[in-house]
Structure formats: C-alpha cells, structure tokens
C-alpha cells in the first residue's frame, strides 16, 4: 500500500511538472552556463508576478466550474482609470487611492460577472466575453486611449522598493527583486489555505465538480459562484495596478490576450478545465514552467521565429499530460 502511494506521488501531475522544469533548466544551463545564477531566480520571479496573480484568479473561477476570459480587459480598465484620473482630472498622489480605485473597478466587474453567471445563468464563457467587451469598449469610448507612463511619486516609491538586489559578481549587473513579489506569494498561501481548510474552499470544489450534488449537500451555489468571480475581479484589479507600477505603463490594451497563456498555465498545472480539480501548488508549477520557457528561449538559442511555435508545443504537451493524468486517475478510481 505504501509503495503504491509512493508511486502515485512520483507520477502525479505535479511531480511530472517538477521533472520537466528540472530537465528544461538543465538543458538551458548546459547551453548557457549563465543560467545557473541567482539572477535567473530573480528574473523568473519578477516576470512571473503578473502571470501568477492572474493564474490565481483564473484558477479559483475554473475550480468553481466557470471560466473567466474578462480579466485582461478588467485589468486594463482597473489600471487605466486611476492613472487617467491622476494624470488628467486631479493629481492625487496616493498609492492607496490608486489601489482603491483599481480594486473597486475589479469588484464592480466581478459583481457583473457573478450576476451574469449565477443569477442569469449565462454560460461563463459568453458572460465573461461580454464583460470583457463592455469593459474595454466602455473605457475606450468614455476615456479614450492614451498610454500613461509616468507614475505619481507614491507609486514610483513602491517601484523603487526592492526586497533584494543581486549583483552578478563577474558582470556587475544588478538584478533587483521588487517588493511586490510578496503579493502573489501571500495571495497564493491565502488562497491555498482557504481552498483546503475552509468550508468556502470546499464549497468551490464541490460546485465545480457537480453543481446539483453540491446544492443537495447544502452549498449555496449562487453565492459561491459570486464569490469566485468577485475574488477574480478584485485580485485582477490589484494585479493590474502592480503591472502598472512595475512596467510604468497603463494602457487600455496592455494585458489583452493574456487570458490564453493564463488558462494554459492553470491547465498545465492540473486544474481541470471542467472544474472541481486543481491546487495552488499545481498552478504555481504551471506558471513556473510557462514563465521559464517563455523567458529562456533566447538563452537556449532558439531563433525568434520559432519561439511562438515552441511555446505552443509546450502548452500542447502540458495539456495532453494533464488530460492523460485525469483519465488515468478516473480509471484507477473505477478499478
């Protein structure tokens, strides 16, 4: 019995992802020794901040049996509107204000998604597509489109605050890691705790697995769906403001198109697209793998013209792996 458990652990999706990540790192490191450096860890962390934040939003929604393709649009509105206000309407130099506006915007669109999906019972894909159009179309119509690249000094102060700065000994290059890395870290721990230890978390899994069974078991399906979308909206708002701070750029299109890579990261990490299955750790590994691949193809010497193809292949293989694993666990359950 113990042997069997050990085997199951070693061949779990998460462990396979770990093997793939290690293997990929070894290959890159072999091609380019500069890869094996603390700088790589900092670079991956810094790059992965946005993807990890958005993947957490997406994961919670997918777990609950839904899907959210509106977060890029919501995020764009959430970073654009506060920056618009600061630059064009009234100069409010306050990080609190910027984040508050971003969160309120995320909250409002989250509520809209929740309303469409749980009250009107629209298919989540259609509902969030509609929200996406409303959000990005609305902001362009009402506020036009500019790119705001100057941060008010309160936000610039956050940008200047680094957790650690690594200086490469041979080249002297500096690799700062911004303090905002703590946001996805804390959020991941929090979400993980809620999902595993609270009734709310178990409820999200339950409604994602089988809505009717969950209802019979006494879960308030509507309320739980609402919570999933509202969480996604609010956290998207925060993540978008982080993007604005770290990239010095608020536009109405900066995040558009990110939904595919985010959903892919979740699915590769073992989040079942039909709902009810998935963990924060798995999602983290999915994000790690995709970030690693996206950021090291130049190191690997893969010509730029092939890179999109390679990323596509990685996503495809990752998805095949998880669906194969899902099938295997189902068969095992039957046997």
């Amino acid at each position, binding site marked *: 019995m113990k042997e069997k458990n050990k085997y199951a652990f070693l061949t779990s999706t998460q462990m396979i992802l770990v093997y793939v990540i290690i293997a990929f790192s070894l290959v890159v490191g072999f091609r*380019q020794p*500069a890869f094996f450096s603390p700088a790589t860890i900092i670079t991956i962390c810094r790059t992965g901040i946005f993807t990890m934040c958005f993947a957490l939003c997406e994961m919670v929604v997918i777990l609950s049996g839904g899907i959210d393709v509106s977060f890029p649009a919501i995020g764009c509105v959430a970073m654009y509107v506060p920056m618009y206000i600061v630059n064009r309407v009234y100069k409010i130099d306050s990080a609190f204000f910027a984040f508050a506006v971003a969160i309120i915007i995320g909250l409002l669109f989250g509520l809209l998604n929740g309303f469409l999906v749980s009250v009107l019972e629209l298919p989540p894909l259609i509902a969030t597509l509609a929200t996406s159009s409303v959000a990005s179309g609305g902001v362009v119509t009402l506020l036009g489109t500019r*790119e705001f690249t100057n941060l008010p000094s309160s936000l610039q102060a956050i940008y200047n605050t680094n957790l650690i700065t690594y200086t490469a000994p041979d080249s002297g*290059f500096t690799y700062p890691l911004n303090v905002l890395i703590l946001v996805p870290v804390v959020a991941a721990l929090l979400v993980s705790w809620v999902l595993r230890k609270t009734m709310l978390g178990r409820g999200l899994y339950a409604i994602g697995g089988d809505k009717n069974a969950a209802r019979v078991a006494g879960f308030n399906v509507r309320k739980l769906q609402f919570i999933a979308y509202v969480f996604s909206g609010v956290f998207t708002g925060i993540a978008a403001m982080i993007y604005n701070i770290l990239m010095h750029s608020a536009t109405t299109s900066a995040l558009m198109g990110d939904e595919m890579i985010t959903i892919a990261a979740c699915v590769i990490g073992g989040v079942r697209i039909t709902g009810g299955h998935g963990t924060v750790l798995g999602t983290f590994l999915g994000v790690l793998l995709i970030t690693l691949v*996206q950021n090291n193809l130049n190191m690997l010497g893969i010509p*730029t*013209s092939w890179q999109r193809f390679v990323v596509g292949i990685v996503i495809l293989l990752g998805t095949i792996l998880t669906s194969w694993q899902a099938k295997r666990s189902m068969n095992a359950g039957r046997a």
Partner: protein
Amino acid sequence: MMKKIISVMAAAALVTVMLSGCTDAAPAASAPAAPAEAAADDAAPAGEAASGTSYKIAVVPKMTNIAWFQRMEEGVNQYNEETGSDIFYGGSAEGADQASYVESLLAEDWDAICVVPFDSEAMMPIFEKARAQGIKVITHEAASMDSSVRDYDIEAFKNADYGANFMEELGALTGGKGKYIQFVGSLTSVSHMEWCDAAQKLQEEKFPDMECIGRFETADDTTSSYDQTKELLTANPDIVAIEGSASTDIVGAAQAVEEMGLAGKVSIVGTSMTSIAGQYVEDGTIASFSVWDPAEAGKAMIGLAIAALDGTVEDGMSLGASGYESITDVDGVFYGNARVDVTKDNMANYDF
C-alpha cells in the same frame, strides 16, 4: 435662423475662395501664413496648405486606440481648423476589423480615402472596390503593398535611409565596437525588417568591429522587450548597444538597462514617442530616438489626396506638411524626408 445659416455659409465660401485664390497667386515662398504650430516653426511652407478643400476625404488610421494615431487625428483636426476644410478622421479601435470599417465607409460617396493599412492583404479587395466606385485611394506605411489596388502611397522616408541612420548613431555612441541586438515588433513587419536590414548592412560595411547577435521579436509589447533585454544581457554581458523598431521596444529595453545598472553603458537607439520614452531621454538612458510625426503624415496624405484629385501629383512636389516639402517618386510610392530625431532639447515640440 435660416438667414443666419446662409450668411455663415456664404462667408465660409468667400473665405475659401479667397484663400485658394491667395495660394494660386502667391507661390510657396511668399506664403508666410504659417500658423503657430510648434513642430513646424522651421518649416514655413506648411502654411501653403491653407486652402480649404471641398473634396470629401476620409483619413483612416490603422487603429484609433494608440497615441500615435491620436497624434494623426490632431494633425487632421489642425488641418481642418487652419484651412476650414472638413476632412473626416475615423477608424476601428483595435485595427483587426479595419477592413470592415473601411468597407462600411464606402457606402458614402467619398472623393478619396487615405488609409494606413493594418493588414494589407485584407485591405486589397476593399481598395479595389473603392477604386471601382471612383474613389482615389491613398495609403501610408504601405510601400510594399501591391500598387495596383491604390493610387498613391506616401512614406515619411525611405526605410533604408531611416534604418541606416540608427547604425550611424550607434557607431558614434559605441565608437564602432562591440555586440548589439535588434528588436522588431514582428519578423513579418516589413518596415521594421527593412530598418534593421539597412542598419546591419551599414554596420558590416562601416563598423566591421561591431557584431549583431540577433534580431528578436517583441510583439510591440513593452514587457517582452524588457524581459528579453534582461535575458539577452545576462547571456551576453558584452552587449553594448540595442536597436529598437516598435515604439515600445526601446522603452522596455531602457527600463531593463536601468534596473541592471547599465544606464550609460549600453547605448539604445530606435523609434519611439515622447509620451512613452520621454522619461528615459530625460534621464539619459536613451540619448535620442527617431520618429516621424504622424500629424504631418496625416496632413501629407490629405495633400496627396487633393493633388491626386486635381491631377497634379508629380515628383518633387510639396504636400504642405513638414518633412514633405519635396517628395520623391519611386514607382508610384512617394517618399518624404520626415525623420525627426528627438532629444532632450526638442522633446517638447514632439509631445505625442
């Protein structure tokens, strides 16, 4: 009420006649009516365009949701104000549906449409349809497009000249030594590729001690050029120069270079805009960037459209826009000399 409208119209007509008469009588040199436009204060002939047109002309940008084409809109509006014309400006927000936008425009009886094609292939049948309706088709940023579907194309400059200039700058900044990388928005972007090709060619001839490590795609995404700059510098610490093509390329590169403590050690040149690269020019990470003013490009398209309708298009003519005072004809594609090098000193004039 009616009377008022008629009198206003009559006055407008009178002004139009007077203005056009004025231009006819007075050659370019004696037209000091150049309006107070900061960007064009050294280009008096810009005032020459001060003849309102009664032609019905539409200007359609690639997309409306970026600052670049908002600047073009400003140019068109300015043209309208200065000349009392009523040129229409409009397009699709994201660009992907530009073809259907232009197709829906064709329901009206335009004299000419000036289009900056988002996707040349998709636009071809629409242009053919427009020309079948007797509409003159003027394009911009589309020199390589099949010329049979349009009347004239106007480009800000020859891509080879523009690209070679970047290498001249890099050569001067680096002393003609060291490794460099090139960023393009997309490997299928003809203009970006032509700039980089020309730069590389000049480098091989003139700066043999420099070496191009490669050309990398950024998808016009600041984040992408930022991430790749860090990656490439880590792998090749001896890179001394970066050439960008998309306006976001050098912005992401500059941020990465600053964060890595390499400001001043890695030279950055490329195309960009004050609104997004200004802060890095201000603090010196980017010495200067090049650009052409989309406001002037918009005016030039209008000028070319009017000339096409009047049948007066010729080599060496002026389109009444700064940088387009003497355009060169190369097989139906007209080139201006509208490159602008933006530095700390003249940045205020190119605030877009």
